[in-house]
């Protein structure tokens, strides 16, 4: 390897690290919010964030530029969540630090009550794909076409499923309401 190549590699590494750090700064909070909404224990969310970004580091070349990066990260976070087993918790430095930060600074992870609790229960009865689609649009604020990219389905399929999911959720909630009245 000639000196020129060495320099290029060093420069490439610097650039990769700079991009990676920027990705974390710009999207880290969104990924943490995504994870926190889907776990009971905030410490699990910390691990999901750490693992998601490690995957991003390993596959930095695949991370789309611009707004697509967040969708790509949501996709990774979703798979990381699916594989999250407490017994196999992998404590990275970031995971430890973030978990500690969440323990001391995040106090809003309280159990929902009232109508919110009813909605969450109803959401829990939806199929996993429908539920994720609905939440990506409602909680993460994605357009149906963006949620489609996260889930790896077509935009058309996403719109159709979204319509179905909302109908199903409404049905479930109306059922609960009727049960409550009865």
């Amino acid at each position, binding site marked *: 390897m000639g000196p020129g190549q060495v320099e290029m590699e060093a420069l490439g590494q610097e650039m*990769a690290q700079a991009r990676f750090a920027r990705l974390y700064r710009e999207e880290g909070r969104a990924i943490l919010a995504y994870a926190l909404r889907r776990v009971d224990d905030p410490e699990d969310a910390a691990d999901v964030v750490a693992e998601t970004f490690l995957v991003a580091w390993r596959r930095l070349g695949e991370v789309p530029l611009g707004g697509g990066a967040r969708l790509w990260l949501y996709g990774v976070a979703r798979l990381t969540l699916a594989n999250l087993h407490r017994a196999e918790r992998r404590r990275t*430095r970031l995971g430890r630090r973030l978990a500690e930060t969440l323990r001391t600074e995040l106090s809003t992870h309280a159990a929902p009550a009232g109508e919110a609790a009813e*909605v969450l229960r109803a959401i829990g009865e939806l199929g996993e794909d429908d539920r994720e689609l609905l939440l990506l649009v409602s909680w993460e604020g994605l357009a149906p076409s963006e949620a489609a990219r996260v889930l790896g389905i077509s935009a058309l399929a996403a719109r159709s499923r979204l319509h179905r999911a909302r109908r199903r959720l409404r049905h479930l909630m109306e059922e609960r309401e009727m049960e409550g009245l009865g």
Partner: protein
Amino acid sequence: MNAREIERALAAADPLGREAVERLDFEAMEGDLLADAEDDPAAAPYDPRRARRRPPRLVLAGAALTVAAAIAAAVVLVGTGSDRSSRAYGAELIRFAESTPLLLLEGPGWRVQNVYETKTREGTSGQMEFVTGKPIPYWSTRSTGNIEEGQRIYGLPPLSVLERRVELRWRSLQEESLADAILNRRGYLHAHGRHFIRLPVLDTTAFVDTRSEIYLNRGGPHEREVAAVWAEGGDLIELQGWVPSLEAFEERLGWVTKVDSSTWLDAMPAKVVKAADFEGTAREMLQGVTVPKTFSISRIPNEGLTTSREQVAGKVMNTVACLWMRQWGDAMRTGDAAAQAEAERAMAGSRHWPVLVRESKEPRAAVPEIWQIADEMPQGYWDFRGHHRDLLAHAEGLGCARLGLPLKPEKQRRQREHGVPPPPD
């Protein structure tokens, strides 16, 4: 329940307030993430470990050095391992040594070149120079430009010399907390971009500023100044060095070792003056120096520091000069022409004080401050670009108040009222 009501109910069920996450200081955790990435066993796009495995550019020379280093390391371990703590130091010296962080850089072929220690309000602060190869003399630099647009520095030794030196600095955490030090480092002008990581050191993790070059004309892919900060006991520790790569710095950081006070004192080179040798060294340095009637050896404050000969020399010479300047100032106020003339003659004679003569002959050395003051005494003022300035106020810059010998009457009054020398600056 229509679609809009469903959406509203869903939004209301969001368990997370947006502001809760916005508040978190994600940037503070960036170093941890980058350290995780570097430690990640899976292949990374630009894996630093891949670079680490890269053979050195001068393969043969590198290999020979490695072998020599291994032998040197073995000799050090076998040769000094048994008697490391056998050398007896007085309890007082041990106590003084223990006021420092007792850290050494135990790299093969590396040694302590010099130590500087200063008493501060909060404790002691100091720095140690570790070098490998030939001794590295002092250098003086000049810089151009300004902080806003960037500066350029001239006069630094070649990189091959800079890379043979590592500086370890410490100061009390009460003086600067670790959080502040990190914040300050983040805020520096980084001529070649900011890149911070975390690396293990001793039993903690250091915050590492991997591109701490502040000058536009220094730094490149194989020329980087790296600095690590961490907390050790009650001190903030800073390790700084010029290295060809981040891996080289990581290696140096790995050599940092906490030792006991005897080992630490043993590691001091002959030129470093230990607290117990202070008085003898001071007497040696006073050979050929004309001292005033008010002088006695106890006038030179021995703060129990382990420090460089230059620092001791500064203290000894400045104590003598401050006493002469006090006599001169008092004589000016009282109109004692003989005492004034005696002080002027003695200070003019400082051109022959052996320590100052040696100092002035160092490469690129500036004219000793004492000589500059002596030159201005006959005219009675400090000539600053054509303006007449108070020479006593200027001479205070020798650290007279710190030595317990303030020159200005108001400072002397304050000293009398408080009964003790003013605290260190």
